[in-house]
């Protein structure tokens, strides 16, 4: 039995890196500390895709890696407008090969941010993002706001490691010295912990941000008695907490990005932070979901200039989310093949978009079977990054951390699968050119 320390979790955007596990016979037998229940479950392992496979007559037939990779390359090579989607639950090294493949094919590349914090990215495009690393929050924050998010269940270690419950340099007393405001449409495990729970009406985030901005900028007289179901007294109370704080941090989730005004909600959340900064130190951060969704945005941006929904059909990067974003492309039936890597549109895309995805050839690269596997035509199993493969990932605060390889495996890492597909495609092109 070997104890492995400093294990980095490849589950959510918290990227906890202080996990201790026990390894025996090339298996993680125990997670001793550091991981939340979901992270622990991933580390202990579960059902995998056993073999590469190709769909024939409606059934998946197991085959070799060579055969599956060749078939995948053929599909992409023949396609006139392929969509390469996913990328958030793998490492940056694989993402980089993905960008190269996209360029080579003149494809459209999109990542899961598109259906997650894509609206947040659009807001950052618009106004920027005043933010900080999670350690800043841990050491300084005396006011934490969670808005449209339920970290107790979705990012289970977040409060303990980085925010309300953590202890740091100026926050040695932990939550005793802090205040927490939670804004949500319903009671959750997180709202139960809050000093102030602001229950807003579904879809009213925008006017509530506006009301707080108005108060913080000295215009409380224009705020009516009630905004979005929130009494004015409570808005004044929250604004007062902001004014009296030394360092406030707002974290926000899907409850803000996918309701009502969508990306305009986030613009307003950032403007609220700017207004708060006139009184205190104020920062704001999206609670990113997948462990490397921040990383695929980073890689795409330094390699193409843009964070998601990138169309390379012109030979250079063209960015117009809403047109080239995966769900929209599929909805318009504007792609004729798709490669899905490290994600599951089968479970998360709108039905109208899935109709087209089910019609076109689909290649899936993933360690685990999921609803997308049900209609994939080529299935290529991959090593699990962070357990069987190493590589760089970006935490939700854009801090890069290297995932460790803990176990040996015969499964190929994503990076190698993609490189082999690219090599095959280039060989086909060369052959045809002869």
């Amino acid at each position, binding site marked *: 039995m070997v104890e492995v*320390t*400093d294990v*980095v979790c490849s589950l959510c955007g918290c990227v906890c*890196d*202080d996990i201790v596990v026990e390894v025996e016979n090339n298996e993680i037998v125990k997670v001793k500390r550091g991981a939340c229940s979901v992270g622990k479950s991933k580390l202990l392992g579960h059902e995998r895709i056993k073999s590469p496979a190709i769909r024939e007559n409606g059934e998946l037939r197991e085959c070799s890696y060579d055969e599956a990779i060749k078939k995948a390359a053929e599909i992409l090579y023949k396609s006139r407008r392929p969509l390469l989607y996913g990328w958030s639950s793998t490492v*940056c090294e694989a993402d*980089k090969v993905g960008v*190269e493949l996209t*360029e080579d094919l003149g494809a459209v590349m999109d990542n899961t941010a598109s259906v997650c914090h894509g609206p947040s990215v659009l807001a*950052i*495009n*618009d*106004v*920027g*993002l*005043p*933010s*900080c*690393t*999670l*350690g*800043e929050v*841990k*050491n*300084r924050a005396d006011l934490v706001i969670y808005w449209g998010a339920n970290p107790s269940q979705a990012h289970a270690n977040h409060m303990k490691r*980085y925010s309300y419950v953590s202890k*740091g*340099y*100026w926050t040695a007393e932990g939550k005793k010295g802090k205040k927490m405001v939670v804004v949500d449409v319903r009671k959750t495990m997180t709202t139960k912990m809050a000093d102030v729970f602001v229950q807003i009406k579904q879809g009213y985030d925008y006017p509530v941000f506006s009301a707080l901005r108005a108060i913080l900028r000295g215009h409380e007289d224009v705020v009516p008695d009630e905004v979005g179901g929130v009494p004015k007294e409570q808005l004044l109370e929250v604004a007062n907490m902001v004014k009296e704080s*030394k*360092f406030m941090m707002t974290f926000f989730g899907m409850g803000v990005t996918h309701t009502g005004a969508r990306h305009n909600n986030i613009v307003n959340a950032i403007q609220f932070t*700017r207004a708060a*900064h006139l009184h*205190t*130190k104020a*920062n704001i951060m999206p609670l990113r979901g997948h462990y490397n969704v921040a990383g695929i*945005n*980073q*890689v795409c*941006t*330094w*390699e*193409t*200039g*843009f964070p998601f929904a990138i169309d*390379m059909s*012109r*030979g*250079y*990067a*063209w*960015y117009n989310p809403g047109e080239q974003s995966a769900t929209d492309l599929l909805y318009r039936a504007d792609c004729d093949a798709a490669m899905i890597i490290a994600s599951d549109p089968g479970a998360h895309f709108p039905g109208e978009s899935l109709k087209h995805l089910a019609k076109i050839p689909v290649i899936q690269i993933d360690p685990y079977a999921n609803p997308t596997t049900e209609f994939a035509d080529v299935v290529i199993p991959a090593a699990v990054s962070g357990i069987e493969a*190493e590589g*760089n990932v*970006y935490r939700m605060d*854009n*801090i*890069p*951390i*290297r995932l460790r390889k803990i176990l040996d495996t015969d499964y190929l890492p994503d990076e190698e699968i993609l490189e082999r597909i690219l090599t095959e495609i280039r060989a086909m092109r060369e052959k045809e050119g002869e």
Partner: protein
Amino acid sequence: MADGELLIRNGVVYDPINGVNGEKKDICIRDGKVVESVTNPKVIDAEGRVVMPGGVDIHAHIAGGKVNAGRIMRPEDERKGVEPKTKVCRAQSGYSVPNTFATGYRYARMGYTFVMEAAMPPLAARHTHEEMVDIPILDNAAMPLIDNNWMTMEYVKSGDTDLLAAYIAWMIKATKGYGVKVVNPGGTEAWGWAKNCDLNDAVPYFDVTPAEIIKGLAEATEKFEMPHSIHVHGNMLGHPGNYEMTKDTYDVVKGIKPYRDRPTMHATHTQFHSYGGTTWGNFESKAGAIADYINKNDHVSIDLGSVILGDTTTMTADGPMEYSLYQITGRKWTNHDVELETGTGITPFLYSGKVSVHTIQWAIGQELALLVKDPWKIALTTDHPNAGPFIGYPIIISHLMSKKRRDESAESMHKAIFDRAELPSVDREYDLNEIAIITRGMAAKTLGLHEHGKGHLGVGADADVAIYDMSPEEKDAGKIQKAFLNTKYTIKAGEIVVKDGEVVAAPPGRTIFVTPECDDKLMDEMLVTLKDKFAKYYSVTFNNYPVQDAYLPNPYEIKAPWRSS
């Protein structure tokens, strides 16, 4: 790979480190290095053309978290520079914050082969390295920020210079960095509470002053045989009247003995620190006062931070400065404070020749170049992209070389240039030898890279060569600018990478890093304190912090031994 043997025949060579000033001579190249002679070379006819060593940029922001945050914030900038992929080149985007591929190609087309990334937040060092690896052709290095770090301030306060040196050594090794970068010392930590610091203010909670931090870091740096001195972005950048504080900052390190014949401080983007007046209303140039200081003292070198008119993206670890700028313009603003270490601010900015302040800023950068007598004390920079994108260097070169060009530009700009700046009354014109000094020789020497093959064409040097399509007699500023924008040839490590202004090969560059060597006992003592910081205050573990070797596929190490006395 290098093209075996190359002979550059009959070029007019400017190699100031070796005292070669416009001599017609041949350059022989074998296996990526300059050699005495060759036997069966491929010949490049450089008859009558200007030949220089590959350009060396001492200070630019080209890779890492803040550059990428600038890109994410500015899709409108990315759209400006799009160029489709070619057989050799990856797709390009961006103007003031180009993607990594465009950064490599565009520098190479200007004849540059080395660029120093000027500010690497240590906690995000992996990010800087990931991007540097994706910048083709160029060799590069990065300077970690070590001035607002809690460890630094605590050792400065206790006066433990040896332990501070041990911390510096650990940090530079852990980040695979090059030297000690200082950005608004103390002020960026204060920005964690939305505050800022003057040179002699006490940093909140830490009870040290920025002046003490700078002095402590200079003394600790000189404990090693470091190739480069501390590299300083001082306090109150961009504030009217800051020139007095700039001179006071230079005074802080006066008397500290450098380990070799180089300055004790490199003061960067000096244009932003040479401001007179008390408000933006009576803002004026104090480049003369700063140049006077530099002329009289040898312990400080500077780079210009010269302004290029037009839209750009400003970015720095000086969080409070970017906030002030955003308060003025009301444009987009990104901030990213980094726990226990540093910060980041980013905001777009438009330098307009119709605005008095911008016009004076534009003049100051050039005044510094023209009023400092010894070009070996100056490097040409725009603090890319802060005062303008690097792609504007040829514009500055053409202005420095032509009084006529400067007068023409001044005529079209705000009249404030005639009463609140000195530039219109300066007659000096740079010659090509002086241009070669401020674009390669000085930077290579100041960084200590001339001992590692950069910035010159002596036997044994890296075969990095720029051949400009112009005669040494050329006086037409427009033609000079055009020649410096796109080389006839750029050769990197013996390989032709640019021909007739087009990138024809894009080999990967190397990452150059320094390893300061420190006594084990001292290091162990320092590590007790540092590990406590990780256990209590950092959000990553001590063992996951250092940059792994995987991030430097083409490493080049420079050792910096502890000095015995």
